[in-house]
């Protein structure tokens, strides 16, 4: 394993993040505050409690997941797409590094940035509502696994994309609807029975449910199922990346 190379890629990517630290920090703080104003104060004041939890607190795990998933994808997809776009990918391809090392460097950096933003949102949320995290270790595990798996997915999108439009397509048309419909702002039990069944086909439901469980101890679906879902998703992404690695698809002509 060429650890020096992995570290170089990771540092180079993190450097890009630190160059725009202010925006990186300000944007999640601002959007979270807006969500709290709209959903927590304006709408939330008309909703008493969801499953015995204040609505303001109830939406925190969903809000964190929403940002973490979209950030992981956009960071990782941009991270690998940009070198392809400006041509600096030649250096990655001609260096004595394996594809696995490239993936670890880029995905690791993208996941770290998303994790950082997740923590910032959590800190911002705690200014608005009283939060107690019942299972902090499980919370951290879910958070890290989500960052990693969605960064892997973002990496695949970045390899697949041939232009900036395609880069935005999957996050916009697939991920955002799935996250919004995945119970970020409501409990599945609030839906009509038929939609409760349909929504179980949405993989994001399991992630948000598991993550919410680590905060409040209650969930829409069993925690073990959530854990299996995220592990399965990570394995699927790793499988696709392994295939890309074997074939050189859209990387090496």
């Amino acid at each position, binding site marked *: 394993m060429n650890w*020096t*190379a992995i*570290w170089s890629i990771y*540092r180079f990517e993190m450097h890009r993040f630190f160059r725009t630290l202010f925006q990186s920090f300000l944007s999640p703080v601002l959007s979270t505050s807006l969500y709290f104003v709209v959903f927590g104060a304006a709408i939330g004041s008309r909703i008493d409690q969801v499953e015995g939890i204040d609505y303001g607190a109830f939406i925190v795990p969903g809000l964190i997941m929403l940002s973490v998933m979209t950030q992981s994808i956009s960071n990782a997809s941009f991270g690998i797409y940009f070198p392809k776009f400006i*041509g600096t990918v*030649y250096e990655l391809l001609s260096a*004595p590094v394996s594809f696995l090392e490239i993936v670890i460097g880029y995905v690791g950096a993208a996941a770290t940035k998303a994790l950082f933003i997740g923590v910032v949102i959590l800190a911002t949320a705690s200014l608005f509502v009283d939060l107690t995290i019942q299972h902090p270790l499980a919370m951290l595990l879910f958070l890290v696994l989500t960052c990693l798996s969605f960064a892997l997915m973002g990496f695949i999108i970045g390899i697949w994309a041939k232009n900036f439009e395609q880069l935005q397509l999957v996050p916009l048309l697939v991920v955002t609807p799935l996250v919004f419909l995945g119970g970020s702002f409501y409990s599945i039990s609030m839906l009509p029975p038929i939609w409760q069944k349909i929504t179980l086909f949405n993989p994001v439901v399991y992630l948000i449910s598991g993550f919410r469980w680590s905060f409040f101890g209650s969930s829409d679906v069993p925690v073990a199922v959530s854990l299996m879902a995220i592990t399965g998703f990570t394995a699927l992404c790793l499988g696709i990346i392994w295939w890309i690695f074997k074939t050189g698809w859209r990387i*090496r*002509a």
Partner: protein
Amino acid sequence: MAAILSISDLRKSYEGGFEALKGVSLEIEEGEILALLGPNGAGKTTLISAICGIINATSGQVLVGGYCIEKDFRAARSLIGLVPQEINLEPFEKVINSVRFSRGLFGKTRNDALIEEILKKLSLWDKRDSQIKELSGGMKRRVLIAKALSHEPRVLFLDEPTAGVDVELRKDMWEVVQELKDNGVTIILTTHYIEEAEAIADRVGVITGGQILLVKDKDELMTQLGQKQLCVQLAGPIPEIPKALADHQLELSTEGDTLIYTYDTKGERTGITALLNDVAAAGLQLRDVSTRQSSLEDIFVGLVSGGQS
């Protein structure tokens, strides 16, 4: 000397059937400078890309320092430095960070003293903290060279290194290349500037249509294929070449005051003595005599047009 780069029957075909490399075989010795000449689309960049791992060859084998570029890609690639033809650089990054990144990517531990030396040699030290987008075109090209040198390659590929670079800078680069050669680095450069090959190469390879037409020692190539011209300047202009000189197949300059005789340096008899005797016999008065060797460019144009026909 042992071959540091050994290419055998390298082929590259694209979907749709286009064959960019048609069985290229080439041996490059350690410490030499090989210039690859060829027209646009000849396969120069494809060849370099296949050796460096940017594209996958369809078939054939490449050994760098004895390591196969596929099976032992780490060992092979760590010997190679590549300066690409296009200026591919991260515009927002600082020069020094970009160069440090390249070194790290090749698995080498940080060495600030070396990076400083390289940047100074390439006159980039003052610009080390500038963002790459602020640099001029020539400076960006030098950043690409600095990046390739940062990981101390034994084989350096320079793909059109001086395209769009002014004459002074080009000469500076030749000095850098010469210095690298003195340190034992093997250099393969592709170029459109034949004077560049003429100035710095030890051997010249001519590639066209995905095939190597020839690889020869530069001086040998020029002597073997070179034609010389003898220019006989007359005391005054003449309307036409005298009939007595018809056998020599001379040309008359447009001004009518110079007879041009083209001869092959390979030939046992150049025919110069006979020509000069006949010129004197024809009663022509001479002002001056000079000879001119054909340049590598003439040879190149001759070869490529011959290869295509």
